[in-house]
């Protein structure tokens, strides 16, 4: 895409942002409200020499991008809640074998088939806990079409840097909403490429981590005789089915993210410095909160907005930083609410919505008014 202004939906911004970040492989299975990502990729990837394939289902899709990533491509898929529920097993594979991939979840009304075209934020916890076992992944969630585009670069960069699946969250509102967006020049940004082995084949242990806890990643076909397995494995990549190997491997997989979490965290703090009450809100739902915070301030209420852009690893230090009451406004029945409760030392209130629509500025303002002094 030439640099300049465009009028895009969140879905288009995902696709264009991915291509801008260097993604050249997409495998997916359509589902509302993410299908337009696939459609844009189907159109655009061939133009830039990339590969687009529609697989038979979501499981095939994620398996394919894991394979493609080993083959050396920056690869992604996009889906919505039902698709993530199916991809969970192979998200675990990507975690265990440390494969950079980006998985987009455009959240829609849930559980089950729910409200396919309407907004929800019901998949926060799933993004973190959906696959079996204890693991850490990285998850981002933008609030505008521009941020969607920009954040796709972070998503790919983090995936590549930490060799980890990145779950990029979107919601039905953002996916389908159009806004103006600026595409910067190609060379104005930093694109991270995964660390390659420095030792020649034969000398490089496939899963030997550096000090940053991340092992360099060889590419298929380069002679490294890679072996990767979803079983608990040792530094050679060979299965080693012992508690000791498990302890070493799984601890590192978790720690490699925790160790770098402060670098991964992105958070918007809006008028929080002197706030008495802070609303925690994310994605498109945070937009109304900004309006409400301004309105509240006009009424003399010291309100603020804390918007985690990195949802996982959760930027809990920002919660700990403020000794205020929190209101968590999310379009679900309490998810990040529990996380905030874990780290907050004052009152935490949940402002839930079951799904289908954003919180309105009025609703937020109403909740804030209780803090009028």
């Amino acid at each position, binding site marked *: 895409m030439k640099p300049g202004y465009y009028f895009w939906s969140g879905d288009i911004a995902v696709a264009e942002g991915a291509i801008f970040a260097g993604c050249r492989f997409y*495998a997916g299975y359509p589902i509302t409200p993410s299908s337009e990502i696939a459609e844009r990729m189907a159109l655009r990837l061939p133009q830039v020499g990339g*590969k687009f394939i529609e697989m*038979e289902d979501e499981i*095939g899709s994620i398996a394919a991008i*894991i*394979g493609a990533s080993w*083959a*050396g491509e920056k690869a992604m898929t996009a889906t919505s809640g039902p698709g993530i529920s199916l991809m969970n097993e192979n998200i675990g*594979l990507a975690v265990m074998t440390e494969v950079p991939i980006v998985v987009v979840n455009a959240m829609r009304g849930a559980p089950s088939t729910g409200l396919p075209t309407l907004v929800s934020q019901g998949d926060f916890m799933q993004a973190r806990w959906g696959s079996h076992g204890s693991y850490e992944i990285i998850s981002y969630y933008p609030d505008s079409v521009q941020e969607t585009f920009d954040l796709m670069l972070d998503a790919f960069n983090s995936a590549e840097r930490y060799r980890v699946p990145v779950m990029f969250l979107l919601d039905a509102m953002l996916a389908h909403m159009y806004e103006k967006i600026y595409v910067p020049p190609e060379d104005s940004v930093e694109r991270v490429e995964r660390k390659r082995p420095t030792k020649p084949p034969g000398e490089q242990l496939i899963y030997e981590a550096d000090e940053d806890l991340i092992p360099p990643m060889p590419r298929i076909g380069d002679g490294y005789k*890679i072996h990767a397995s979803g079983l608990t494995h040792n530094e050679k990549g060979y299965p080693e089915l012992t508690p000791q190997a498990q302890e070493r491997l799984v601890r590192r997989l978790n720690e490699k993210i925790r160790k770098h979490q402060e670098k991964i965290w992105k958070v918007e703090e809006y008028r929080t410095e002197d706030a008495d009450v802070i609303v925690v809100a994310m994605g498109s739902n945070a937009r109304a909160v900004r309006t409400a915070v301004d309105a509240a301030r006009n009424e003399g209420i010291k309100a603020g907005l804390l918007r985690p852009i990195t949802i996982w690893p959760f930027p809990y230090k920002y919660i700990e930083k403020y000794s205020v009451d929190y209101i968590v406004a999310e379009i679900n029945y309490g998810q990040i609410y529990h996380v905030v409760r874990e780290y907050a030392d004052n009152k935490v209130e949940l402002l839930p919505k079951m799904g289908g629509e954003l919180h309105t500025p009025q609703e937020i303002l109403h909740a804030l008014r209780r803090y009028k002094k």
Partner: protein
Amino acid sequence: MSEKKKTTMEILREKVEELLRTDRLPHVWCPGCGIGIVLNAFLRAFIRAKMDPNKLVVVSGIGCTGRTAGYVNVDSFHTTHGRAIPFATGIKFARPELNVVVFSGDGDLFAIGGNHFINAARRNHDILVIAVNNFTYGMTGGQHGPTTPTGAYTTTTPYGNPDRPFNIPHLAISLGVPYVARWTTYHLMQLQNSIYTALHRKGFRVIEIISQCPTVYGRRNEMKNPLDMMEYFRKFSIRKDDATAEEMELTYNGKIVVGVFRDVQGIPTYEERYEELLRRAQK
């Protein structure tokens, strides 16, 4: 003796050793398990084909057969149960110059992985599938699966298997697969030659190998030790390249029709069709 010129077979044997992760031997398979025989045949065919091992990728799912990926000394992936084919699809589609082989078991490919099998076959990805059919889920202790013959006894069919099994070659043919063959582990050379041929073909290629699982299948079905199963294969196999769909069907301890059931050339692969699409998109 060390100076003597090595014979072809001796060189082959040496190269087999090079293509194995010998630091992991002995392997996990049980005494007499057929998977090792298939792997041996595969490696020999590959060596004979003189293809570049650095471009060979072996992808397995989960199962006893799925452990194969862990023993071949090339880029190799032990993925999730049933997902070897789409994983391999990602590799092949991303880098068509790679030589991608899926090596997995009947359960992995036709139970949980059935959807990927039929859809990849339909798209005609350029992938060779080595399907080791031991009539059971060996790894999990011998439950029945989609290839277990009707009537067979397994840990989940204590009253005899009520299921009807797949006719794998017929299924593959109905999906337009260009190369379809079946052998048993007794057919050492035919199998090797068939793999050799398939390695030179293009498109989705399926070789079903009837293999013995003495440990959890054989002993419940009147074949107590490895040799009994091998003898079953020896005595009950019939070669018939032009077999009809009915003849290809397998029955409980019945005859096994083997052969090359389909070998057609010139059907464009998915990767070829995509190359063309790329040309169209880029002009």
